């Protein structure tokens, strides 16, 4: 009985795309994350960055889908019903696609958890998968609710090139959700100011996979004495239900 159920489930999951289902192309890393989590069977192509595990939360799924650059000809050849894009970038390409009568939707950049919930519900409705959207949000809320209370601790989120996350940013929302106090002021205070007034905790999220002068900075010996927590960068590059996993890491 269980085996029969499993086989049936497998058939459903691997079944060929039913006729009439939407063909969706995503041209933006954040849209890739949402598309492959909410409706992988509708995805015809995603952006090149989606397969990079340092940046994307759906790297494994992205490898099974065609990778496409924001190139009008390549997108037209895929005959999508819907093109997902980001708020910036490739604007000339998107305008051209819209002139050809193609439906283009631009996702936002949610910077806190209420905005993430709204964004998830909108994209899930767009893709005709509101139940999956609700499931992702339920998991997110469970993680946020699971953060234990403790004495608020000052922390600073330090990004590439020494940028500190200020109020209103996604990293700030994550710090606060994890029960920390963001003691950083937005901008580039410089190593010296950090070493002179060290926070209780330094939070970083940098991919060590490629050499970069910008992230070499975070390994500067002057910062070695400050306690540090590392968050997977893919969780913070784009705000989504997955961002709650960064909160779990920090609240531990």
């Amino acid at each position, binding site marked *: 009985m269980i085996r029969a159920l499993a086989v049936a489930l497998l058939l459903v999951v691997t079944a060929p795309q039913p006729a009439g289902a939407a063909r969706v192309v995503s041209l933006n890393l954040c849209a890739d994350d949402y598309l492959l989590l909410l409706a992988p069977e509708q995805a015809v192509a995603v952006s090149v*960055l989606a397969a*990079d595990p340092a*940046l994307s939360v759906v790297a494994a799924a992205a490898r099974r889908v065609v990778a496409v650059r924001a190139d009008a000809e390549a997108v037209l050849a895929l005959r999508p019903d819907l093109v997902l894009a980001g708020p910036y970038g490739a604007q000339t390409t998107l305008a051209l696609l819209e002139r050809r009568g193609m439906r283009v939707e631009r996702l936002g950049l949610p910077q806190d958890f209420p905005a993430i919930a709204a964004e998830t519900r909108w994209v899930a409705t767009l893709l005709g998968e509101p139940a999956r959207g609700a499931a992702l949000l339920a998991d997110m809320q469970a993680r946020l609710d699971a953060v234990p209370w403790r004495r608020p601790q000052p922390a600073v989120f330090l990004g*590439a*090139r*020494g940028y500190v996350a200020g109020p209103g940013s996604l990293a700030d929302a994550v710090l606060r959700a994890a029960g920390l106090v963001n003691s950083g002021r*937005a*901008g*580039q*205070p*410089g*190593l*010296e*100011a950090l*070493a*002179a*007034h060290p926070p209780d905790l330094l939070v970083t999220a940098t991919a060590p*996979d*490629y*050499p*970069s*002068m*910008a992230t070499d*900075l975070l390994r*500067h*010996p*002057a910062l070695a*004495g400050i306690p540090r927590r590392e968050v997977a960068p893919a969780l913070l590059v784009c705000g989504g239900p997955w961002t709650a996993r960064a909160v779990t890491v920090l609240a531990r």
Partner: protein
Amino acid sequence: MTRWLALAVAVLFVASLLTGAAGLGVPEPLILWQIRLPRTALALLVGGGLGLSGAVLQGALRNPLADPGLLGIGGCAALGAVVAFYWGLAAVFAPALPLAGLLGAALGCAFLLAFAGRATSGPSLILAGVAASALAAAMLALALTLAPNPFALAEITFWLMGGLEDRTLTHLLLAAGPIVLGCGVLLALGRGLDGLALGEDVAASLGVPVRRTLRLAAAGVALAVGAGAAVAGGIGFVGLVVPHLLRPGVGQRPGALLTPSLLGGAALLLAADLLARVAPLLLPLQQEPRLGVLTALLGAPFLVRIARQVAPGGAG
């Protein structure tokens, strides 16, 4: 003259150690040794190397517009360093960074010497330099775009505009050897440069080994500029401005200009770096202005002035 310049360098060096985002005065040892010392010492070395290289190039090529940045040598050095760093070579073998910078600078020097041949004093050398620097900047941007790093655009800005903030003692150790060696080679060229000032034929008849002097000049410039650009990125105009500022004080003999230009370059870059650090303390700036931006703001009007003095098409 030399004494005053040395005093200026010493004063700026101490002021630089006492100034920073953490406030004025002697900081805690960690900040002093790990943050301010590497930065200050690198400004001294890189600036000295650039100033001296400019003086040697202007003397050896008998061209008042010669400058390691303008001739594309700095750009070629940065290109070499970028390739070594972003393809992980420097992570495996740290000295690969200054070595690749040296190699890039040496290639730039070789290209200029081969292209310009004996006609080094005319505008053709500067045009070759413009071509070399444009090519180096384009190749640098291309190398960063092709590198396995999705944030290439931000890193291109760093390399093209240069900077010394947040370098480590490792950077200092890597760059110091080649720069000191290069400066040693260049400082010994004084007599040869004095002879070359009279023209290559006259210099040869005076017993100056012309080819050897030019080759040593190229090698010294490659060492001093290459290692500097590998850790500081593209810092322009220091080598152009410093010899011109000092020439009225020491006369037209190129050999007499070498030590003052070394000190003057060090003083100029120390001052520019100090200004970059003081600016956010005085003005409502989110971050420090780039060091290469400050030297360019200083140098570009200077270049216009010199270009006006050089007769059109003339030997200058």
